[in-house]
């Protein structure tokens, strides 16, 4: 067993602040890997390990300043299984974390979901639910405290399974060797196939002049600190929610051969995962959030989605979906509705375009908004009313 200690990087270095852990307990490391960032009076250093093994639990939390030579973590020579028991114990260092003047206190890195064939960390309720829904726990990634599998994880896994099941005979059986990415791809494939097969889509598109709202936003952002600034997509999302209030038929589910309009507006926002695939977690009650709150909610959601810490309600609650591909330079989105929802709103890139108005030609910043809607639930007329309302709300950004 090796020991990873606060290194002495110079004769005059007495202490170092552990700014950030770059590895998680249970992770395999090899000689020369960078495992932590340490700040000294000379600046920030990347710290490497000098042996191969498996990272033990952190004995010093990010944010703590400790003397040179302090044991920061053990490096186990054994198998991951042996370490797993150890990382399951609660780190006791959290309480002593002191705020750093340079960087905000880092969260103690939670042990990432570690899957062990010996003992899964799984809540009792999730364990029972998995049994009821026929979900194999070994295939589920936990998002709970210390990587524990929770009900939401089982629900998400079961949903993917349900979507797959109608074509279970045709689809290749899930093999144990599949990566989570493969399984997600399979789930997405099943969902969109079903959507395309069952939902008679109709599409409407419109160009919206964003000059005024963006001007207003720039003015607004000037008064906000960097952390509080709002991105244009937040305006689009809030306006969408308000327009859905005007045309509620697009906010609902097609179930049992009828439209069930939902009273609350929970917008599923498509988030691409860096490892591939996407998740559309719900932002709850978008119509009731202020722009600032919505910005915070989205930032929080994106971060948690990418770190795999979504809540169950967020995975299952969306009543309508929004896809924004503007970041990638796309002009127009033609979306696939996520069943049982009945509409998907797409936004492309915001760009300067020639714009004719009152017989004059000018250059305006525009976005193409599209609506993909389920023809069983609504007709083009309602869809058109929705896009009109969307434009109207965007032109009154101060009221958003």
């Amino acid at each position: 067993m090796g020991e990873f200690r606060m290194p002495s990087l110079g004769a005059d270095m007495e202490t170092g602040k552990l700014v950030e852990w770059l590895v998680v307990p249970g992770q395999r490391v090899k000689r020369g890997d960078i495992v932590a960032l340490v700040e000294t009076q000379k600046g920030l250093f990347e710290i490497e390990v000098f042996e191969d093994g498996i990272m033990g639990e952190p004995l010093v939390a990010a944010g703590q300043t400790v003397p040179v030579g302090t044991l920061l973590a053990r490096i186990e020579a054994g198998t991951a299984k042996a370490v797993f028991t150890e990382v399951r114990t609660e780190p006791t260092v959290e309480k002593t974390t002191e705020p750093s003047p340079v960087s905000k206190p880092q969260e103690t890195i939670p042990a990432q979901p570690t899957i062990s064939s010996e003992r899964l960390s799984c809540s009792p309720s999730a364990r029972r639910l998995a049994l009821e829904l026929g979900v194999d726990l070994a295939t589920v990634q936990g998002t709970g405290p210390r990587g524990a599998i929770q009900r939401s994880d089982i629900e998400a896994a079961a949903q993917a399974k349900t979507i797959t099941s109608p074509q279970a005979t045709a689809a290749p059986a899930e093999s144990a060797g599949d990566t989570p990415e493969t399984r997600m791809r399979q789930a997405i494939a099943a969902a969109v196939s079903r959507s395309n097969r069952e939902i008679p889509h109709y599409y409407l598109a419109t160009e919206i002049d964003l000059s005024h709202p963006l001007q207003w936003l720039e003015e607004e952002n000037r008064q906000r600190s960097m952390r509080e600034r709002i991105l244009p997509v937040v305006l689009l999302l809030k306006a969408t929610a308000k327009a859905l209030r005007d045309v509620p038929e697009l906010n609902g589910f097609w179930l049992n051969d009828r439209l069930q309009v939902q009273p609350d507006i929970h917008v599923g926002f498509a988030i691409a995962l860096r490892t591939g695939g996407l998740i559309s977690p719900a932002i709850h009650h978008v119509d009731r959030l202020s722009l600032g709150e919505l910005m915070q909610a989205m930032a929080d959601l994106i971060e948690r989605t990418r770190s795999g810490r979504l809540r169950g309600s967020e995975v299952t609650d969306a009543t309508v979906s929004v896809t924004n591909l503007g970041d990638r330079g796309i002009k127009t989105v033609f979306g696939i509705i996520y069943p049982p929802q009945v509409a998907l709103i797409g936004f492309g890139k915001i760009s300067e375009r020639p714009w004719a108005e009152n017989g004059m030609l000018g250059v305006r910043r525009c976005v193409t908004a599209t609506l993909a809607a389920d023809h069983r639930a609504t007709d083009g007329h309602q869809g058109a009313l929705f896009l009109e309302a969307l434009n109207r709300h965007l032109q009154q950004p101060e009221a958003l």
Partner: protein
Amino acid sequence: MTEQELLSHIFAELKKVAPECDPVELAPDENIREALDIDSFSFLRVLVGLNERTGVDIPESDYGKLSTLAAMTRYLMARLP
């Protein structure tokens, strides 16, 4: 703060939003967002993180001036408190 120190701050922030990438391999004039596939939310997070690490306030209208490593370093070095 030396340029090297600033760079390590930038790398740390980029690694937070793109953990699977190695920002050290970025060319100085490569478009960061395109090279690392960073969306507007994540990019804003990088800028906020750099603001907190360096104390440099970056107005929204300047966001476009930080699109490459070289531009970013230049912009921040010039404004370090």
